[in-house]
Each structure stands twice: as structure tokens, then as C-alpha cells.
């Protein structure tokens, strides 16, 4: 690049090592002022780490940072903020029990205080960008879209000129993405510099002026969107061809494994989280659930697994009415469960792997012998999973915490597929898993399906849904609103169905969530 102007941000030779991993290795990134610069790369490529270094959350082991041509040392986020850098994190950094106002002014109280002046300023920014946020509302009452806007508001409120957005679109519906992009373009016009991270390559191509690709912690290339296709980008990221899930011939049988009828789930104060959900899955069938996060997927999965009690409706498994059964009994009857949050729901992080093998299988061999824990059985079977699912670990006595996220996920999938489950309830089974492992997991699910496994698959990855499912149901505001044939549907159609057929106004997720 032959810059004429000074770079807004120049990262040179950045190295960051974590115990056991080199997250960044000689990374070089130059961001020109007033542009949108995208960072892409696989999970774990080191994007977030690099941005945290730029924002002062973490210190680089080597390398230098230049802002507007000046070499700087950023020891804390406060230093970065003082240099006009703002960051929207991959995971929301909001205090639920504080108001929008408090979340926004926190740390920047000097600008307009914490009272009415700040309130006015928030109203002003909110109006200017069409954010429509009430400063006095508690954050916990907001839906994901609104939360994302609060995050951006926080950055704008601080007068940041260089704005980092780490996967801001992951939780947004297409309309919200559009709105966000409109905001970003507006910001760019006003002279802000934007650094944008996304796994959605079409988005990247649509918004970015320049794209830097990271692979295994190192920069591989910096390209212009006009010069590449998303396929090229993907190859740069992975270093090889992308695998894609594709269903072979149908294995659906007549035997109904799961039948959910007229299910209604309410929250504490009696508002419906799920209503009139009726669903049937046969042996050998994969039913995919598509929907924007927060529309009742979690509740549906939990109701099927028995963690949540429905207020009305029935759940039937094979020939038994299991509505009144607890999770233990359902799992004993052959339900495998891959939870969406693996660290919170799938693992005992401080327990060794072999004990994690027992988790969820406390009633069944090989990890149990009647009422007694069968340690040898559990250890042996853990070793089998480690080998079959290619879990990278020194041994089965290692604690789960020491494994990387992808390897944790592989272990969970291996565990839930063992013991020949009749029904697998899988939430985002390949989230945070690298491409190789992703393909392996898809193969395992397909293989099991062939043997007659029924699968309830919830995923945000439309390709995964289309590739694996025998039928796709769309969930919106707690109701199943449409059924699609994966052979004919396009991601675009699904995308608009998820948001209520496109022309309807976007639902205020808050009413669904709470």
C-alpha cells in the first residue's frame, strides 16, 4: 500500500503468547484514516486478541502500535480511550442491572456528568443515528439489537474516532445489519475510522474498504474487496478448500421418536416464551430450527430436554408421555444433549475429562455400574472419545478447562453421541469449532442419523441447517411459523422468514425475551 496520509492505526510485528498458544505472531496491519478496515480469519485466528491489544486490554509481548503516526504504549483501556479509540466487544460488555445511561457514561463521567446533561447528550446521539434508546431504561429489559446499539452509543459518546467492532453482526437480523451498516457508512462519512470483524464474508465484502486476513495468528494478506470473491477470502483464511455440509439421500423412517404437542412455556410472570409449538421428529430425521437468537430456541430445547416445565402441552418420546419426566429420566431414556453454552451447561471445567464423561450419563454404563461410578469404564470410554473425535489433549486426566473451546466441543459431541441415543438435541453443535473438526462433527451426525437417530438441530449457521436437516422449521416470537424444504430453500429466504417475512416491522425482541 502506498499511503499518502498517515495511517490511523499501524500495528507492527505484534506478538502475543498465551500459556501454550501463540495468539498473534508478527502481525502487521495498517488502517488508513476514514476507511472501514475488515479483519477476517477462522475461530481462534487471533482477531480478538489483536484488537484487545489495540484497545489496551492486553499487552503485546512484542511489536509496536502507532496511532496517527505516533508510537504509543497502551497499558489500559483508559489509555486507548484517551487516544480516541473505542471498541465494541464480541461479547456484550453491559451491566444488566444498570440503566442505559449508567452503562454509557461509566468511565466517561467527565464529559457530561452523570445527570441531565448526559441524558440530553444520549438523546441527541440516539436521535442523530436513529438508535431510539431510552437512557433510563434498564439494560436487562433490552433485546440484543438494542444492546448492540447501546454498545455503539458507548463508543460514540466517548467521541471515539477509531472504532473497533468485533463481530457486531453475529446476533443481528438482516434488517438490523442493514441499519448498522447505514450507521457505519454515516460514521465513515463523518471521518471516523472503523475496524470491523465478521465471519460473514458477504458482509465484509459489502462494507469494507480493505480486508486483512489472519491465519493461525499471522497476517496472510491485505486485499481490496473489489479484487476478491468470498470464496477467495475463505481459502486465504483456511489455507485450503472449504468443506460444506450436504445431505445424502433421506433416511427418514416412520417411527416417531419425538412428538411435541401444543407446547406453551411461560416466564416467571406468566408471559409466553413459547406458544402452540407442535413438532414431530422421526427416527433417522434431522429437524432444523432456524430463528434469530432469543425467539424461543433455548426454551424449546430446554423443554424437550426437561430442564424447563411447560405450562401446557405434552412431550412424547417413542411411546411414552414424558411431559412430567425430569431431565435425568429423559436422558436415561436416550436423549443426547449438546447445549448452546458448552462451558456453562456442558462441562465441569475443573474436573478431569473422564469425570466429564460421566456428566449427563450418571445412570448408564459404561461410566456407571448401577449406583456406583465405574471409573475404569469412564476412563476407557473417554479415551475412545478422545481418539475417535480427535480431541487434542494430553490425556483424560486433564481438566476440561485446559482444553481449547473447539476441543471441548468435540469432547461433548463425542460424549453425547455415545451410548446410542435415540434423540439428539443439538444447539449450535459446531459453534467455535474449526473447519476440520466441523466436518468431522457433521459426519458423525449424519452417520448416526443413518443408524436411526432423530435430531433436533438448532443452529445460527444457515449452511449447517440446510446441509444437515431433512426439514427446517422457523421459530419467531416463540411460535413455529414456517416449514421449509432444505433442498429448495435458499439462505436468503430463510433469513427473511426468520425475521417475520421481511415486510413486517422488526419485532421488538424484548417482548419475546422477557
Amino acid at each position, binding site marked *: 500500500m502506498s499511503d499518502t496520509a498517515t495511517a490511523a492505526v499501524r500495528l507492527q510485528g505484534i506478538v502475543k503468547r*498465551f*500459556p*501454550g*498458544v501463540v495468539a498473534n505472531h508478527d502481525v502487521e496491519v495498517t488502517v488508513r484514516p476514514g476507511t472501514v478496515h475488515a479483519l477476517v480469519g477462522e475461530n481462534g485466528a487471533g482477531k480478538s486478541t489483536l484488537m484487545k491489544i489495540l484497545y489496551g486490554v492486553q499487552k503485546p509481548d512484542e511489536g509496536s502500535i502507532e496511532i496517527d503516526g505516533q508510537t504509543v504504549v497502551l497499558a489500559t483501556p483508559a489509555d486507548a480511550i484517551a487516544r480516541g479509540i473505542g471498541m465494541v466487544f464480541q461479547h456484550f460488555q453491559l451491566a444488566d442491572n444498570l440503566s442505559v445511561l449508567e452503562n454509557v457514561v461509566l468511565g466517561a463521567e467527565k464529559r457530561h456528568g452523570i445527570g441531565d446533561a448526559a441524558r440530553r447528550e444520549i438523546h441527541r446521539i440516539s436521535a442523530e443515528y436513529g438508535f431510539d434508546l431510552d437512557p433510563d431504561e434498564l439494560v436487562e429489559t433490552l433485546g440484543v439489537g438494542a444492546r448492540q446499539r447501546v454498545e455503539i452509543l458507548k463508543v460514540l459518546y466517548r467521541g471515539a474516532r477509531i472504532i473497533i467492532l468485533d463481530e457486531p453482526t453475529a446476533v443481528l437480523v438482516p434488517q438490523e445489519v442493514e441499519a448498522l451498516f447505514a450507521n457505519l457508512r454515516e460514521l465513515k462519512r463523518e471521518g471516523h475510522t472503523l475496524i470491523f470483524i465478521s465471519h460473514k464474508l458477504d458482509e465484509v465484502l459489502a462494507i469494507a474498504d480493505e480486508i486483512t486476513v489472519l491465519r493461525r495468528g499471522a497476517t496472510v494478506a491485505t486485499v481490496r474487496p473489489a479484487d476478491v470473491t468470498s470464496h477467495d477470502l475463505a481459502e486465504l483464511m483456511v489455507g485450503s478448500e472449504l468443506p460444506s455440509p450436504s445431505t445424502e439421500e433421506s433416511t427418514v423412517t416412520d417411527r416417531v421418536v419425538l412428538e411435541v404437542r401444543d407446547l406453551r412455556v411461560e416466564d416467571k410472570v406468566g408471559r409466553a416464551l413459547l406458544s402452540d409449538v407442535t413438532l414431530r421428529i422421526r427416527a433417522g430425521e434431522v429437524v432444523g430450527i432456524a430463528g434469530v437468537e432469543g425467539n424461543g430456541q433455548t426454551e424449546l430445547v430446554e423443554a424437550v*430436554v*426437561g*430442564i424447563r416445565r411447560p405450562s401446557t402441552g405434552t412431550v412424547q418420546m417413542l411411546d411414552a408421555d414424558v411431559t412430567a419426566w*425430569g*431431565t*435425568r*429420566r*429423559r*436422558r*436415561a431414556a436416550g436423549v443426547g*444433549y449438546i*447445549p448452546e*453454552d458448552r462451558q*456453562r*451447561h*456442558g*462441562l*465441569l*471445567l*475443573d*474436573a478431569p475429562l473422564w*469425570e466429564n464423561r*460421566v*456428566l*449427563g*450419563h*450418571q*445412570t448408564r454404563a459404561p461410566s*456407571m455400574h448401577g*449406583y*456406583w*461410578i465405574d471409573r475404569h469404564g469412564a476412563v476407557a470410554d473417554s479415551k475412545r472419545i478422545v481418539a475417535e473425535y480427535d480431541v*487434542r*489433549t*494430553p*490425556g483424560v486426566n*486433564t*481438566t476440561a*478447562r*485446559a*482444553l*481449547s473451546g473447539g476441543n471441548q466441543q468435540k469432547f461433548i459431541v463425542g460424549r453425547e453421541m455415545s451410548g446410542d441415543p435415540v434423540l439428539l438435541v443439538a444447539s449450535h453443535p459446531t459453534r467455535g469449532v474449526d473447519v476440520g473438526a466441523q466436518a468431522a462433527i457433521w459426519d458423525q451426525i449424519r452417520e448416526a442419523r443413518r443408524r436411526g437417530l432423530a435430531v433436533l438441530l438448532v443452529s445460527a449457521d444457515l449452511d449447517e441447517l440446510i446441509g444437515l436437516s431433512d426439514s427446517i422449521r422457523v421459530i419467531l416470537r416463540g411460535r413455529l411459523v414456517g416449514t421449509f424444504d432444505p433442498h429448495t430453500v435458499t439462505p436468503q429466504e430463510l433469513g427473511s422468514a426468520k425475521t417475520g417475512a421481511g415486510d413486517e416491522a422488526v419485532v421488538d425482541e424484548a417482548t419475546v425475551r422477557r
Partner: protein
Amino acid sequence: MNLLPRVGVGLAAPLLAIVVAGLVTSLVLIGVGDSVAEFWGVMFTVPSARLTVGIVNGASILYLSGLAAAVAFRMNLFNIGVEGQYRVATFAAAYFAGQALLPGYLNTVVTICVAMVVGAAWAGIAAILRVTRGVSEVISTIMLNAIAGGLVAYLLRELGDQQGQIRRTTTIPESSWVGGIPLIPGESSRVYGLAVLAVVAGIAFAVILNRTRFGFDLRATGRSETAAVASGVNVKRMVVSAMLLSGAVAGLIGMLDLFGNSHAYGSTIQVGVGFTGIAVALLGRNNPVGIALGALVFAFLSAQSNALGIEAGISPEIVAVTQGVIVLSVVIAYEVVRRYQVRIEQRDVARALERDRAREAGALS
């Protein structure tokens, strides 16, 4: 891999803590002008045979108390109420045994069951309040301790007998007493016969916790309530069971002295064991062997401190400082060691990963 150094640091932690506690204690003594040499001289006197027996007895009682607390702690339930459970249960047991409804050792056995049931019931109140009303067990058990005191005092007044200055329950018939075990030949004082209860409870604790489904569920809930729920654990039921179990063990604490020494419940009952048990459990990291060591350390310090006043003119209260500092420095030391171990472990994982990568790379070329 590197198993040896790991075990090494595991042992280093408690030793380090004891050294730190010793240093702090010495500093305090120097600060107030007491003789450090005399202090350690007394504390490190080899205990007499009789005192050894006393230490074992004290440790047995503390061990049960520590176990009671640990059962709940393993599930992240903070049962601060062992004290109250122990008092209510011991009173009920003493009263029941004193009625002599059953002959001989049958009376003993049934009484022990009564104590466990009553202890469990008292703990159950806190459990019920927690699962139905969401009341933090930390607060409710503290309140229940105070209430237990008043309740027992009332019952003692209503049901007890007057003996000289003391009110006590009717003395247990001699046929139900449990004789002592001669631990050291030629020594007349004996270890409580029911100290076997501590041994049995310790083994049961270890087996149940590490080998059974219930134990697994309990530990899983303690480690991650959310993961436990997803694995099919009914957390409310576990809260109730763990508290009941904890209370039942608390009920055993008083049995050693009741059948082995005092033979009645009176105003001279030992108080504060329940609280010391919490410290012992923490010291032993809620692990059956660790608690035993913790109980011995505490009992040893208390027993040796008795002579401080007689021989060195130092107030025995200083030993409480030693005990507290041991607890605090042990947890800090463990935390430091834990961080170190996590790092070792992650390095191992990374090495395994690198090896794989290298192999892949080798296969490609």
C-alpha cells in the same frame, strides 16, 4: 506427566501456610513483648500420653464437625449452622437416651439415629427456606443457630433436672454408655468409644462422594450448577439432600462426649465446635483426609495451648490467631499453587497440540 512436582507443590502449600502462621504468631508475640522461645517451647513439647489421647478425642469431634460443614461446602452450600444443628440434636439425643425407653446398646444405637434425624431436620429448615423462598442459607443458618440456643434452653428448663448449680437432662443409664478405647498402653484416659463414628463417617463420606451417583451429582452441582442441571440433576432436591446430610453428620458431633463422658446434656456442653468445624473443613479443602489433618492440627494447637498459661504465662488466645492465619494462608497458598498447576497443564496441552501439528506438517512434506 510431571506428577511428582505436582504432588510436591500440593504438599508444599499447607506446609508453607503453617510456616507463615508461625511467623505471624511470633511477630505478634514479639510485638507485645512475650517470649517467642517460651511459646514455641511449650507448643512443641511432645504431648504426654494423656494429652495425646485428649488431642485424638478433640480431633475426632472436630473431624465430624468439619465433615458436616464439608458435605454442604462441596455443593457450594454454606452451612454456617452446624453449631445449631449440633446443639439441637445433642439435646434431643440426650433427652431421648435419658428416658431409657430401650435397653442397653439398643438405646445407644437408636439415640444416634435420633440425633442424626434431629440434626437433619434442623438443617432442613434452612434447606426448605432456600428452595421454596430463596433465602440464602448463610443468613438463615446464622439465625437458626441463635434460635436453637433459645429453644434448647427452654426445653432444658422444661424437661431437664436440677443438679446442684446445673440443669441437665436425665443421665443416660449406664448400660448404654460407650466405654473408651485404650489408645496408649498404661494410660488411664481413653479415646471415646464412639470416635469410631468419625472414622466410619469419614469413610462413608469419601465413598459416597467419590464413588456413587449421589456423590457425583453433589460434586457436579458444587462445581457448576448449570452443568449439573443439564446433566439431569434436580438441584432443589440436591440442596435439600445435602443440607439434610450435613445436618445428620452435625447430629453425630455430640454423641462422642454424650455416651463417653458427660452422659447428659447440661449447661457445660462444648460450644463453638460447629464454627471451628467450618475452619477445619476449609483447612482440609473439604476432602476427608485433609479434614482429618486439619482437625488434628486444630486439636493439637488447642491442647498444647492449655499449658501456655501454666508454663509460659502467655495467654492461650494467641493460638486462635495462629489457627486463623493457617486457614487464610492455606487457601492463599492453594490458590497460588492452583494457578501454577493450570499453567503447567496448559503447557502440556499446547505441547500435545504442537506435536500433532508438527506430525501433520511432516506428513505433508
